[in-house]
């Protein structure tokens, strides 16, 4: 019985996206595909415990879902003959697609459709979690602290827009591919970050369900686009961050900063996998391929996860990587993180001067004030530090971070 339940969960993880993608391709309609896939899995939950596991669960699910979809279309075509239009909507053969070197997996089409730039970011996130990740609407609503009905409407509206505006169901052409892949990665990174530093006063500080889902989906993209450097970079970044998850929050629910983390509790297997990916990208960079931001961020995390402790960390390497990142992305948030590395190399006074130059652009960002507070504390400027901690606490959205900042402020004399 437990085996069957585990088999259903595994089938759901492995087959959901494949079933939805295959049905979307066949029927040209995301709504039909989603509903039929959900019905097929519900049927599996009902039947498999009694009938036993089918020899090929994926094939069973696809066949069952196909039958459900045809039933629905038959039912609807009695009322409405328009369904035939849907079948010709997408995948116009006149439009070139599927560049060389890209596996034409149905799931890849599904991902690109869900992450289309004509959809708003929160919509892309919700649609990707539903259609590709197989999360239910209530699960997604809970993950983003949105009312279930509102989340349901968001997904319904998205499906309607995809249909009405003919957002294509295919892999973009070679010209568009890099930009579109980076759009997909932005969605996955957002899901990961919400799990890594969850926001909201009543939320757990860490949401391992979300980080795990983001990693699972990124692994899928990595399998589908094995030569893309940024995909490898993002996966490495997630793995190296996830490896430190349990060390990042103390038993009392405080965020534990890097220098106080028990490095022995980091997940060695995830770190090894992340480092392998980073080495792969370093080899590509040595061969002349310019790394993108995820690869650089992954490399920074590889430096941290290679060090025995804070002092052992190769800070000049970290700073060099941040310099590379600043050239690629001159945003003040990157400059703020660079300043943190600068403090370790050139001292807190130099870093504080760099941070203060960012003032006008980051005044509403909690990490800006938290960084200033820490640098002021190290410089012995307690009064100013206390005020900066206060601002950071007011702006921080993560419960563990608020607890940590409060503790640090109260330690000041």
């Amino acid at each position, binding site marked *: 019985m437990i085996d069957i339940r585990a088999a259903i969960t595994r089938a759901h993880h492995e087959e959901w996206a494949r079933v939805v993608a295959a049905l979307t391709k066949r029927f040209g309609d995301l709504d039909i595909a989603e509903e039929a896939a959900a019905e097929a899995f519900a049927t599996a939950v009902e039947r498999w415990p009694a009938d036993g596991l089918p020899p090929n669960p994926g094939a069973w699910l696809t066949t069952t879902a196909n039958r459900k979809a045809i039933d629905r279309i038959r039912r609807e075509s009695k009322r409405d003959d*328009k369904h035939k*239009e849907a079948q010709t909507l*997408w995948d*116009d053969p*006149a*439009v070139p697609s599927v560049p060389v070197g890209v596996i034409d997996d149905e799931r890849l089409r599904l991902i690109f459709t869900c992450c*289309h730039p*004509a959809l708003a970011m929160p919509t892309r996130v919700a649609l990707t979690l539903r259609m590709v990740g197989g999360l239910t609407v209530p699960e997604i609503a809970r993950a983003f602290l949105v009312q279930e009905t509102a989340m349901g409407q968001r997904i319904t509206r998205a499906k309607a827009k995809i249909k*009405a*505006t*003919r*957002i*294509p169901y295919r892999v*973009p052409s070679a010209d*568009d591919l890099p930009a579109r892949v980076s759009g997909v990665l932005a969605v996955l990174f957002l899901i990961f970050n919400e799990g890594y530093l969850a926001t909201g006063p009543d939320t757990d500080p860490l949401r391992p369900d979300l980080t795990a889902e983001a990693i699972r989906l990124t692994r899928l993209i990595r399998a589908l686009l094995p030569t893309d450097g940024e995909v490898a970079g993002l996966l490495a970044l997630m793995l190296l961050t996830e490896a430190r998850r349990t060390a990042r929050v103390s038993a009392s629910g405080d965020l534990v900063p890097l220098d106080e983390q028990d490095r022995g509790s980091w997940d060695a297997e995830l770190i090894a996998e992340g480092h392998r990916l980073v080495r792969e990208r370093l080899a590509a960079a040595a061969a002349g391929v310019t790394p993108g931001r995820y690869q650089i961020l992954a490399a920074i995390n590889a430096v941290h996860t290679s060090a025995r402790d804070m002092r052992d960390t190769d800070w000049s390497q970290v700073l060099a990587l941040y310099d590379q990142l600043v050239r690629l992305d001159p945003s003040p948030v990157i400059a703020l993180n660079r300043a943190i590395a600068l403090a370790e190399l050139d001292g807190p006074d130099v870093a504080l001067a760099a941070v203060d130059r960012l003032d006008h652009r980051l005044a509403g960002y909690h990490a800006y004030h938290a960084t200033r507070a820490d640098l002021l504390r190290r410089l012995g400027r307690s009064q100013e530090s206390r005020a900066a901690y206060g601002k950071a606490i007011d702006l921080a959205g993560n419960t563990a971070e608020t607890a940590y900042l409060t503790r640090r402020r109260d330690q000041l004399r």
Partner: protein
Amino acid sequence: MIHDRGDDATSEEHAAIDVFNDRLQAEGHWVFAGGLGVPDNATVIDNRGEGAVITDGPFLESKEFVIGFWIIEAPELDVALKLAADGSKACNRKVEVRPFLEA
């Protein structure tokens, strides 16, 4: 085509729009296009009640308004968006893309 500034189209913009229109026709996307008069010259009629009520001016006062349009044929949104991007460059204005309702 969305107008969001004070001045009229320049001769360079007119020339660029002509080039873009020629391309739409050559590539088979062209259906129809036209420029619209400014909202100052708009008149709104509401004949849902007893008799037609005529109001001087646009139904919505806004700094941004539709100043022209293209009706194009495109097999899917990606093609339409690419054309709209080139159209925006040509007319030097924002362009909103909307599908026609399926008949």
